[in-house]
């Protein structure tokens, strides 16, 4: 990977740390201005990692949720308000975490994620399991696409569809598990010796700064909660 591409990689350690901070922030009812700071900071981080479309979409979604909560829902009829207020409330809380998650999804390739988890001394078993799970999501999507095409050809509808998707999916999952583990065992996945890695993790200045900002925001949150600041 050339130098320019490498700079775009979002350091997995920074990503995981930011996730912890964002989760803390999301569930401690932070003041409005702090929430805005988080969103602004993450948008900026996305731009620095050249995820322009993602930043735009995030901004639109967040703006949409705010509009929904402050203007549309209070004026909406009862049933609509009941339906969407919990949804809007939770979606808004989840937003920073989701933004970090998307950024990691796009800008932290799997080998880097594995290398990062190894660096922070995750147990090897968990690393294998988590990386297999994450890598299998696109495979599920692909499989169900094919299955759906086949069902459409045969005109399968209604509840039979459920069975029609589940059974082939399970069969192929079992097959993949066999093949993947045969391949992984041949390559020494069960070897207890420390693993080597092709990729070298280096936190870029952008990511290091992001980490510092995350720590700072959490410190401010703590200060606000403890009542050091009057807000």
């Amino acid at each position, binding site marked *: 990977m050339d130098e320019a591409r490498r700079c775009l990689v979002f350091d997995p350690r920074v990503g995981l740390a930011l*996730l912890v901070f*964002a*989760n803390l922030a*999301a*569930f401690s*009812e932070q003041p409005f201005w702090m929430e805005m700071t988080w969103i602004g900071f993450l948008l900026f981080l996305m731009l620095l990692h050249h995820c322009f479309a993602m930043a735009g979409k995030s901004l639109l979604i967040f703006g949409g949720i705010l509009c929904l*909560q*402050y203007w549309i*829902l*209070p004026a909406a009829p*009862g049933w609509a*308000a*009941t*339906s*969407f*207020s*919990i*949804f809007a*409330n*939770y*979606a808004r*809380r*989840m*937003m920073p*975490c*989701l933004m*970090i*998650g998307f950024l*990691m999804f796009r800008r932290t390739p799997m080998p880097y994620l594995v290398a990062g988890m190894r660096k922070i001394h995750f*147990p090897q*078993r*968990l690393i*294998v*399991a*988590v990386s*297999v*799970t*994450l890598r*299998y*999501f696109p495979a*599920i999507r692909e499989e169900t696409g094919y299955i759906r095409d086949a069902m459409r050809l045969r005109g399968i509808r209604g509840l039979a569809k*459920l*069975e029609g998707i*589940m*059974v082939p*999916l*399970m*069969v192929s*999952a*079992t097959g*993949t*598990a*066999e093949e*993947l*583990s*045969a391949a*992984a*065992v041949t390559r020494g*996945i*069960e070897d207890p010796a420390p693993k080597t890695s092709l990729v070298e993790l280096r936190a870029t200045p952008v990511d290091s700064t992001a980490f510092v900002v995350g720590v700072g925001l959490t410190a401010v949150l703590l200060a606000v909660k403890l009542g050091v600041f009057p807000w």
Partner: protein
Amino acid sequence: MNTQKKGMTGKDIITVGIFSAIYFVINFAFMLLSGLHPLLWILMPGLIAVFAGIPFLMMCAKVPKTGAVVLMGFITALIYFVTGQFTVVILIAFAVSCILAELCRICSHYRSFRGNALAYVFFSLGMIGSPLPIWIMRDSFLAQISQQGMPEAYVSTLAALTSPGMIVVLVGAPIVGAILGILLARGMFRKHFEKAGIL
């Protein structure tokens, strides 16, 4: 995780990883659906339990080892952590339910369908951690929505919908759902997987 001879091999871990992915997809689909109405949210753990029985029991049949269920729960929790759905309440509910499920499997020596089925009932109960904060953090939650400009009548409707009595529904739904899920899974196993020689 233990590292004895009987512990999980690389193959077991990969199998758990793959079935966790399927479990998570089902779980997440209902999670999104539950955003539509609070009632759906309360019933969500039950709905998930109905449909996630197949991957769970398949995984149980494939990996008769200690730690498989805990690993599956851990992966699910970790991915929820990324999506920001993660609260301390979910963590505790998940941990308790996974450990109970694991104990169930240890006692039934992993191979019995009934033991695995009971383990699934416990495992499904873990998801009640998601709507539970409504009851636990009730006051702050309701205060927050009225502060966002929700009309008084609406807030009281929501409060009524999440009355303490609804906890019975919340806990009952996954149990009933899990039993339905087990029956569904058993039907599918008999109809397809045993004949195909996969189990």
